[in-house]
């Protein structure tokens, strides 16, 4: 079933693939193989993973911010253009650095960084009239793509280095 296969893939980002398969099998057997249950399970595994090394996870947030804004600033300076490619590269490099710093829990660390970045963009949207200057579509794109790329990089790193 495609839904179960997707859920298994999702859970395998946070636990060993055979454990993810067993969990999905258990939920299916109980007739509880629904998206709310799968998402609750994924959230539990994220929290569990984050609780394993909380200090390292917390440290990865300022590290990610420094890399994101540092790389962004540097690229802006050398290309003197800025824009889309700057944030794309800065996001990917930030995701890579966080993943390397917090090996074994790349995805929770990248998720934490992405959530703080999203919160920052929301704060900016509320505090400054950027929404009106950029327009809603451009602002939403600007706010969404760096966190999305950071999480995607974390996912890729997790898939390249699965949990055992």
């Amino acid at each position, binding site marked *: *079933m495609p839904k*179960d296969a997707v859920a298994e893939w999702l859970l395998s980002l946070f636990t060993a693939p055979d454990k993810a398969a067993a969990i999905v099998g*258990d939920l299916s057997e109980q007739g*509880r193989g629904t998206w709310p249950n799968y998402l609750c399970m994924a959230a539990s*595994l994220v929290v569990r993973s984050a609780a394993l090394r909380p200090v390292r996870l917390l440290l990865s947030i300022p590290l990610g911010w420094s890399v994101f804004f540092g790389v962004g600033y540097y690229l802006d300076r050398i290309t003197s253009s800025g824009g889309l490619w700057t944030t794309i590269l800065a996001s990917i490099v930030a995701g890579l650095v966080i993943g390397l710093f917090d090996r074994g829990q790349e995805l929770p660390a990248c998720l934490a960084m992405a959530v703080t970045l999203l919160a920052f963009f929301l704060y900016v949207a509320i505090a400054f009239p950027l929404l009106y200057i950029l327009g809603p579509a451009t602002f939403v794109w600007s706010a969404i793509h760096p966190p999305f790329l950071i999480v995607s990089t974390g996912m890729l790193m997790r898939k390249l280095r699965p949990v055992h």
Partner: protein
Amino acid sequence: MLAILRLGDDAYGVTIRAEISKRAGRQTASGALYTTLDRLEEKGCVMSRMGDPRPERGGRAKRFYTVTAMGLASVTEAQRAFRSLLQGLPIFGESNA
């Protein structure tokens, strides 16, 4: 761990959850169950093995759990501590002396 001990060779996610529900009279959240099992496995209190893939589970295998010697010692110690704490308390209509 007591549920796993009770179930013997048939202890996997579904049966453990059902056993806890039957004996304790409350539902356990699936997330809490699997993260607890993971933690117990990391501590060496339980160990797991994969069963054979089953068609009724979409071709997915069960993960069976067994309590290790260390886990058994932990259960015994917890039980001893529980009894010790109960001792002398005038509850349940008796003194537990």
